[in-house]
């Protein structure tokens, strides 16, 4: 990866994280932890991986992203706003009555959202349906989905995993955001989904393990997925919940709680400082 491009991605991811803080702070609600953990992956998907056109969000041959862990909507919305699907000002109106940005992704009203999600386990099936449509009707778009590691406790995820492999959907890439935490605690303490990689492999998927915050690894994984034929790819991405805001990192308490004014200021200071440092180089 070109150094400049990596810096661009890092800056984009930082701005996504600022959007997460801005949105949840103004909403006084939302899920910052699991939004921050996917910011880098979203930066890659929206700046390099996916064939999309913010001016034509319904372009029929576009690549699709289904945010199966729909509660990470603040990160998705930030990425979409930064790409120009809608004005960045909308982020401050997150979760407010009669505004566009619903608590969870709403495909009917938000440009760039390819599927309404939020009820865990359903998004991967919807993504599978899109990938199936492309295969059945000889269309060449690819379909991406992002799951939580807690989410894969839902049985429907494994119905979809079985189906996608049985139907050889090599145009489907699922990424498991493995931040190791869910609302009630560590995923191990609640109901361990491990070994995630071996489970998907046993279901017939090509599996790649990466660090969710290393752009070289993200790039390599998605590139590798493009070379895989006859089976879907699962990227198990080891991540840090709350990544980028030090007091939120690896803290389960930041799953579904918004920052107060003081915390908002601290978080924004840290992210702005990181951005300044990045741009100063």
């Amino acid at each position, binding site marked *: 990866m070109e150094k400049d491009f990596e810096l661009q991605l890092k800056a984009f991811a930082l701005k996504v994280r600022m959007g997460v803080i801005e949105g949840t702070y103004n909403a006084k609600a939302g899920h910052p932890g699991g939004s921050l953990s996917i910011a880098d992956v979203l930066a890659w998907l929206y700046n390099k991986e996916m064939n999309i056109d913010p001016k034509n969000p319904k372009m029929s041959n576009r690549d699709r992203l289904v945010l199966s862990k729909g509660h990470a909507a603040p990160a998705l919305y930030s990425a979409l706003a930064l790409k120009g699907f809608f004005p960045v000002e909308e982020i401050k109106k997150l979760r407010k009555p009669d505004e566009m940005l619903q608590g969870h992704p709403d495909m009917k009203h938000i440009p760039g959202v390819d599927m309404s999600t*939020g009820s865990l*386990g359903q998004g991967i099936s919807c993504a599978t*349906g899109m990938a*199936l*449509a492309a295969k059945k009707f000889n269309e060449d778009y690819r379909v991406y989905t992002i799951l939580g590691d807690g989410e894969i406790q839902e049985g429907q995820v494994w119905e979809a995993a079985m189906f996608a492999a049985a139907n050889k959907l090599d145009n489907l890439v699922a990424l498991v955001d493995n931040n190791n935490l869910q609302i009630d605690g560590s995923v191990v303490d609640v109901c361990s989904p491990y070994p995630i990689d071996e489970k998907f492999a046993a279901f017939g998927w090509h599996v790649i393990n990466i660090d969710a915050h290393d752009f070289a690894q993200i790039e390599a994984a998605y590139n590798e997925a493009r070379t895989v034929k006859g089976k879907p790819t699962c990227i198990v991405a080891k991540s840090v919940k709350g990544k980028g805001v030090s007091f939120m990192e690896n803290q389960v308490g930041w799953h579904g709680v918004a920052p107060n004014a003081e915390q908002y200021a601290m978080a924004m200071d840290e992210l702005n400082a990181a951005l300044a440092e990045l741009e100063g180089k």
Partner: protein
Amino acid sequence: MSEIKKLATREGYGAGLIELGKKRNDLVVLDADLAAATKTGAFKKEFPENFVDCGIAEQNMMSIAAGLASTGKLVFASSFAMFAAGRAFEQVRNSIGYPHLPVKIGATHAGISVGEDGATHQCNEDIALMRTIPGMTIINPADANEAKAAVLAAAEIDGPVYLRFGRLAVPVFNPDDYKIEVGKGVKLVDGTDVAIIATGLLVNEALIAAEQLKNEGISAMVINIHTIKPLDREIVIEAAKKTGVVVVAEEHSVIGGLGSAVCETLAETVPTPVIRIGVEDTFGMSGPAAVLLEKYGLCASNIVAKAKDAVKLKK
């Protein structure tokens, strides 16, 4: 009089899909390992490329249907009513209903007439469940020709549709070229003493009941409500105004189905006594369908009895 042809409404579902398959190459029919029973099997044979078996995983199937529909395909997702509306309720609600995706749900083996399989498979709750989903159209055909017409009509609707079919062969009283107007009830018999508002296999029973009532000097109106949602409020209100008393007959729980929909409508407009015929607040049981329909009062003789009770309520 010649023998009346009998066919299950699920046969009309299968026939309708094949007719659609000839016209629409964007059609995808999904099933969950029940193609022989839901009658999608014939479609699968004729259009194998447009058929996908999802295996015994109805929740996944409904969300897959949503994904397919989101790309602009015409999708029918088939299973038994118990699993389509029951097991996969939340997928239907959130993956299909909330984004208002035009998935057509072909739910067969609805109601008590499933017969021998018994209570686990006799879905008397599906209409109640589906009615609560905003934007969901619900069509419950009365015979195989109406079922086929419903499939063709559903394909034209830009939104989710729940199509309800039965397992039992029932008399075909509509012509082969029959068409339906979604959301419009059909007055089959005019009358002045009591209005019988029926849906599904009870429409034919209502016609038989009206004949018997006529012989006993009671003039019964018979209305076929194939579209339970959106309900044809106008025809219901007019019937109530004209006859002053209503009997609703359906092969569904008396809670939440057409009976409830009619009561809600009339209570808010022209308060009218209503007697509901349906499965009382109970589970079904195993047995031959015909025996069960009699046992649970889903038959012409009970409609006659309840119509007489209803007429007495007026006095």
